[in-house]
């Protein structure tokens, strides 16, 4: 099963490599990993998407906890949560396709943020499966480049992952 693990980690050189190294050394898979500083500059927040059975996920969270730099973590799959991913997508455009792509963007609530005579750059956020659906809806031959951030997530309600 897919799990999305949110981690507060000391914002120190090498912290990211400890997490990445743990996954490769123990043979856990990482589907995606995002990391950025938080409002507290001594902490980074990491969102890690992985998959495995209950026993593997339990080991993953325990092993992550064991890393000295990890301050706190939660498995978002344990609670009701919201996930969002950012995608930037560059497509070829022609006089015939321009309107159609624009219309698709509107349906998916994307924004066109760069326009040339031959291309658009589309910005879109949403759950990962929505981004998948958009890509599927666009003619594959016209896609020049896709950049995805990987999902980030937050739990619903008033409780939060903080110190």
């Amino acid at each position, binding site marked *: 099963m897919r799990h999305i693990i949110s981690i507060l980690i000391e914002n120190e050189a090498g912290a990211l490599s*400890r997490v990445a190294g743990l996954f490769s050394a123990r043979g856990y898979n990482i589907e995606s990993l995002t990391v950025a500083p938080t409002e507290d500059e001594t902490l980074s927040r990491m969102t890690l998407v992985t998959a495995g059975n209950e026993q593997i996920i*339990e080991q993953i969270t325990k092993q992550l906890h064991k890393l000295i730099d990890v301050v706190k973590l939660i498995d978002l799959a344990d609670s009701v949560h919201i996930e969002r991913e950012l995608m930037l997508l560059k497509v070829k455009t022609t006089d015939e396709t321009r309107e159609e792509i624009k219309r698709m963007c509107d349906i998916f609530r994307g924004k066109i943020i760069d326009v040339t005579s031959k291309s658009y750059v589309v910005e879109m956020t949403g759950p990962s499966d929505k981004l998948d659906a958009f890509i599927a809806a666009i003619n594959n031959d016209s896609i020049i480049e896709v950049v995805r951030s990987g999902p980030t997530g937050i739990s619903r309600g008033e409780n939060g992952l903080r*110190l």
Partner: protein
Amino acid sequence: MELTGAQIVVQCLKDEGVEFIFGYPGGAVLHLYDALFHQEDVKHILVRHEQGATHAADGYARATGKPGVVLVTSGPGATNAVTGIATAHLDSIPMVVISGQVATPVIGSDAFQEVDMVGITRPCVKHNFLIKDIKDIAETFKKAFHVATTGRPGPVVIDVPKDITDPNIKIPYKYPKKVSMRSYNPVVKGHKGQIKKAVALLLSAKKPMIYAGGGVILGGASKQLTELTRLLGYPITNTLMGLGGFPATDKHFIGMLGMHGTYEANMGMHESDVIIAIGARFDDRVTGKLTEFCPYAKIIHIDIDPASIAKNVKVDIPIVGEVKPVLETMIALLKEGKNKPNKKALATWWEQIATWQALDSFAYDRDSEFIKPQYVVEQLYEVTKGDAFITSDVGQHQMFAAQFYHFDKPRRWINSGGLGTMGFGLPAAIGVKLAHPKADVACITGEASIQMCIQELSTALQFKTPVKIINLNNGYMGMVRQWQEFSYNSRYSHSYMDTIPEFVKLAEAYGHVGMRIEKPEDVRPALEEAFAMKDRTVFMDFMTDRTENVYPMIEAGKGHHDMRLRVAPGTPIDRELA
């Protein structure tokens, strides 16, 4: 007080109460060595290879419970230390390794003797640090010793770039009294509710087993384990790492379990209905085939490391906490509670165990014309009155040592169980002898293992650490040969060395006493003679039976109940090789 970075490092060691630092100099640590030169509180033990430094520090740590401290230079000095760091890591040994690093401005430029030590050691340390500012030295050292010695102990590396120890830069020094790390707070006390449940389950058992590991020794809980076991009257087995955590000569002890454990310990585990695992981690050498492991048992697991619990084996009652306070709580609950162990069931269980014990799974041919390795260990046990510190290398000799030397006290049996590092024994013995100068210290080794760190014989002379080397010389990498005999139809691929040095001469060349023992009747007198030489390192080269194997054995992919026993104990063994 204004100090240079190098002086700060040395002062930190003094403030931590470090007695010995095991090291080897080089360019990146010259400032540090200069600071060591001006003081006498921290004694530097100059080894002959950095691997030796780590094993010696490790031996010191295992024998004392205090952290071992190592100092190596950058690049090759640092990489040479890695095997010893990994050895300490897998056995959870507290150690602080200071490695020199190239100066901060050139880090990342492939400078002379630069390696990314923090990167290389990341997977085999508990934690590591790179110091980038002289102002961070004291706090980093405080944290390093704290992390290495608390919770589940382990090695910590501190990488110190050369410019950080520059003799021209001085800052005020103050060693922090306390550390607080928001991200590191090991659990100490176990959950009381869980402990209560565990006690109830233990008392309900009809075929109980206590399975105790190295965590008991690391956690200083031998006394509590002994009290608990005697209170319950249950059979107890130790892992290879746990030997000495419970007195081997106590009637409740039914021997080591696992691959080369006793028949009774493994059968007991297999048939048991309630197992309490204490500071043990269900290593594959212990469990055998996981799907056949303890099929009838409910399992209680006490461990300080939550990640050890339910890693390999599903557990019914997990208790995260330090072994000692958890056992203390259990003992108190047992004493105040009304319920007592099921006497009748227990008597039947002990009868069953006695039938397994009657098989005498360690039996060997006592009438052999050759020196049996088991016999040497038995005699060593008697000559040292069971009170020596025994280090070992890795192979058959290690298993014979574990089987035939009965450890009644913790921290006496010192071996590389997790990583299985050949070369560990001799430097470890030197570290032990430094910690306990009056005690008998022996290294049980094989002719292949001893050659991996033989250069430390020179260290033993310089620092006057008279240890006894018990070389069980079977002419083979015996453990490899045994597997090849069992699983590769006796194709002894490269497990034999055509040339083996004359160890007697070699010992003499290093300034020690060498002895070669060829006949069984000479074993005892030779040992007595050697141990009478209190101030000499003696290399005892025992020419042992080349064909001897370690029995019993759980072969790869087999369960506890499926042990390979010696064919009819006492019958002559296949002598093809002799």
